C-alpha cells in the first residue's frame, strides 16, 4: 500500500532472509565437506589419487575397525531399544498423574555434563571390575547405552503418546490378548518412533569418539581411528574414512526416511 517512488529501486524480498543461512551452510557445511572429499581423494603431495579409498577396503585393520564399530553400534542400539521401549510404554500409557515428571527423571542425566557422567561411570566400572581392560566391548557398550538411552526414550515416548488409545481398545475388543495387541497393533504403529530412536542412537554410536577415548584412549572404533590419523597429521587417510562413514550414514538415512514417509502416509485421516 505504501509503494512509494523510493521503494521502486530496491524492494526487500522475503527470500533474501535466506542469505545468512546460505552463507552459513556454505562456510560450515559445504566447504568442509568439499575439503574432506578433496583430502580423501588426494595423496600427501596433493595429487588426485584413489589409493586411500582402495587402501581402506584392503586394509584389514580398517575393515576390522569398521566391522567392530558396526557391531558396537548395533548392540548399543538394540539394548537401548529393549530398555527404552517398556519404559516409554509405561510412561506413555500408564495411568500416572505425573508421567512427564517420571519422563524427566529418565532424561535427567542429560542435564549433567557429559565428561563428568562418563568419568563417573568409568570409576564405578573400575571399582566393580578392577581393571577395565578385561572387558573392553562390554564396557564400551555399557557407557554408550548409558549415554544414549534418553535419545531412544524420547521419540518412543512421543510416538506411543500419540498412539490413539481406541486402537488398543479396538484390539482387545476384537479378542486379542495383551501380547497380541502389543505385537499386532502397538509395535507396528510405533514404528516411526522406533526408527527415529534407532537413528538417534545408531548414528552417534557408530561415529562416537569421546566415550572410548575417555575410557581407553583406543582406536578400536571408527571415530577413534579418524582421530588417531588426524592426531598424526595424516589428513588424507583420516578424510577418506570420514567420507566413507558419511556415505554409509547417508545410505542408512535415505533408507530410514523411506520407511518413515511410508508410515506417515498410513496415518488415518478423518
Amino acid at each position: 500500500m505504501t509503494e512509494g517512488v523510493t521503494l521502486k529501486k530496491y524492494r526487500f524480498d522475503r527470500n533474501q532472509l535466506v542469505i545468512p543461512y546460505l552463507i552459513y551452510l556454505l562456510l560450515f557445511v559445504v566447504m568442509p565437506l568439499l575439503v574432506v572429499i578433496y583430502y580423501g581423494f588426494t595423496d600427501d603431495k596433493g595429487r588426485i589419487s584413489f589409493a586411500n579409498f582402495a587402501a581402506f577396503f584392503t586394509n584389514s585393520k580398517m575393515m576390522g575397525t569398521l566391522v567392530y564399530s558396526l557391531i558396537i553400534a548395533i548392540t548399543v542400539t538394540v539394548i537401548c531399544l529393549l530398555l527404552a521401549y517398556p519404559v516409554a510404554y509405561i510412561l506413555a500409557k500408564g495411568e500416572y498423574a505425573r508421567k512427564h515428571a517420571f519422563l524427566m527423571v529418565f532424561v535427567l542425566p542429560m542435564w549433567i555434563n557429559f565428561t563428568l557422567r562418563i568419568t563417573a561411570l568409568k570409576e564405578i566400572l573400575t571399582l566393580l571390575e578392577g581393571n577395565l581392560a578385561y572387558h573392553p566391548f562390554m564396557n564400551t557398550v555399557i557407557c554408550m547405552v548409558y549415554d544414549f538411552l534418553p535419545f531412544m526414550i524420547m521419540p518412543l515416548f512421543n510416538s506411543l503418546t500419540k498412539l490413539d488409545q481406541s486402537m488398543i481398545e479396538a484390539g482387545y475388543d476384537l479378542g486379542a490378548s495383551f501380547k497380541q495387541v502389543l505385537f499386532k497393533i502397538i509395535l507396528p504403529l510405533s514404528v516411526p518412533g522406533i526408527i527415529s530412536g534407532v537413528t538417534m542412537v545408531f548414528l552417534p554410536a557408530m561415529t562416537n569418539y569421546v566415550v572410548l577415548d575417555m575410557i581407553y584412549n583406543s582406536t578400536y572404533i571408527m571415530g577413534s581411528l579418524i582421530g588417531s590419523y588426524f592426531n598424526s597429521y595424516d589428513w588424507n587417510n583420516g578424510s577418506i574414512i570420514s567420507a566413507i562413514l558419511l556415505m554409509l550414514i547417508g545410505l542408512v538415512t535415505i533408507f530410514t526416511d523411506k520407511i518413515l514417509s511410508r508410515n506417515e502416509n498410513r496415518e488415518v485421516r478423518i
Partner: protein
Amino acid sequence: MSEAKTIIRLTDVKKTYDGKTYVIEDLSLDINEGEFVTLLGPSGCGKTTILRMIGGFDKPTSGEILLDGSDISALPPNERPVNTVFQKYALFPHLNVYDNIAFGLKLQNLSREETDKKVKEVLELVDLEGFEKRSVTTLSGGQQQRIAIARAVVNEPRVLLLDEPLSALDYKMRKEMQLELKNMHKRLGITFIFVTHDQEEALTMSDKVVVMADGKVQQVGTPEEIYNEPANVFVADFIGESNIFNGVMTGKMKANFAGAEFECVDDYEQGKKIEAVIRPEDVVVVKPGEGQLTGEVTSADFKGTFYITFVQCGQYEMEVHCLDHYKPGTTVGLSVMPDNIHIIPYDMTINNFHGIIDGFVDGKGIYLVFDDFSIFVDAHKLYPFSNVSKGRLVDENGEHIDIHGKEVVAFFQPEDGDMSDDEKAGDVVGRIVSFYYIGDHYSYTIRSDHEIDYVVDDEDLWNQGDKVSVLLPKNRMKYRLV
C-alpha cells in the same frame, strides 16, 4: 414382547473415577435380545461410560453387569462376546481393509478359506465389495465407518456396541447410514446398543430409547412413549420442542396453567401441583376468543414446512408450529385438544435438604446443619408445642426435649429461591447444571460442590455452567423432622 429374553442386565451399577463424584448412580437396566436400544442424553450424562462398561473398557465401581445371567463385570474385553464400533472408527492404519476385518477372525484361528468367505460376506453387507486390498487411509469417512461396522459384526457378537458412530459424518451421509444401520440390525438379528446425543437419531432408529441425564436413567420406552408421554420435565424438554407450564389440578381431568383452564386426559387428585407439556405442533391457531388462550403473535420464522410462531398470552409464552403465516402483532386464539396435553405430577423431592439438629440457643432458636449451609430456626417450626425453660427446650409438660442429632428436612419452593452472580451474596455456591423454560420463566438446577441440587426459578437467562450463588428464602423455608 412377553417372550423377549433379557440379554444384558445392569443391576445397581455405580461408577466413579475419582471416588467423589459419581458418573453413574445406581443404574439398573434390562436390554432384551435382538433389540435396537439407544442410550440418549446430553454430553456428560454417562451414556458412553455405560457402553464402555458393557464393552469391558471400564469396570463398575459397584453393581453387576449380567450377560445371559452371568456376571461379566470382571471379564476383560477380549473375553466378552461383544464388539464395539468406535466413535472415530479406530481402524488399524497399518493394515488394509481385508486385514482390518479379518483381525478378529485370525485370532480365532479360522481357516484361510473360511476367513476369506466371511470377509467377503460382510463386505457385501456394508456395500463395499472388492475393497479387500484397499488401504483404510484412502477411504472416505463414510467408507471407513462401514469398514468399522464390518470389522465388528464379522465376529458375530451377541451384542454390538456403537459409540456415536455417525457423529463424524455429514448430514446426508448420517441420514443414509441411519437407515442402513437399521436394515443391518434387522438382517443380522443381533442386539444393538447405540449411543447418541442426537434425539432425532434416537427416535428414528431405536426399538427402545433410554434417556439419561446426570448418570441416571430418566425414562425407558419406545420412541413414541418417550415423545408422547415424557416421564419428567427433563425428558419433555430434551426430546423435541415443548411448551412447559407449572400448574395445578382443579378438578377431574381439569388443570389450570398458563392462566387458563384446560381439559386433559390425565387424572390426578384435585389441588395437586403439576407440570403440563404441550408440543408446539399440537397447538392450533383459531380466531381470538375461540381457544383456551388468546394472545399476540410476537414472531414467526419460516422453517421450510412450517412457521415457528411465538404467541404471548399475558405473561406466558407459547411456541406454535403452524402452516400459516401470522404477522407479528396479530391477535390470535390458541386451542389445545385434551389428549395433546401431557400432565406430569410435580416432582416433590426437589429442594428437599437433609440435615441434623446441632443444638438450641435461647433467643436464636434451633441450630440446623446441612451439607452446604447452617441455619437457626424458630423452635416452634419443628416443635409447635415447645417452650423455653431456663434456656432449655421443653415440651408442653415441661420435660426436656432431646433434640441433638435429630434428622430434619428443609424445603423451599423454586419460585421463592433467588440467585446471584455475586458468590458472596448467596448462601450456597454452585454451578448451573441444567435449565428449561416454563411458560414465563426459567427453571434452573444449581449443583453445589457437595453435589446437592438446588432448583430455583428465575426470569433471566443464564448459561449452563455459570457459577452462581443461591439465596435461600429463609423466611419461607419449611422444616420437618424425619
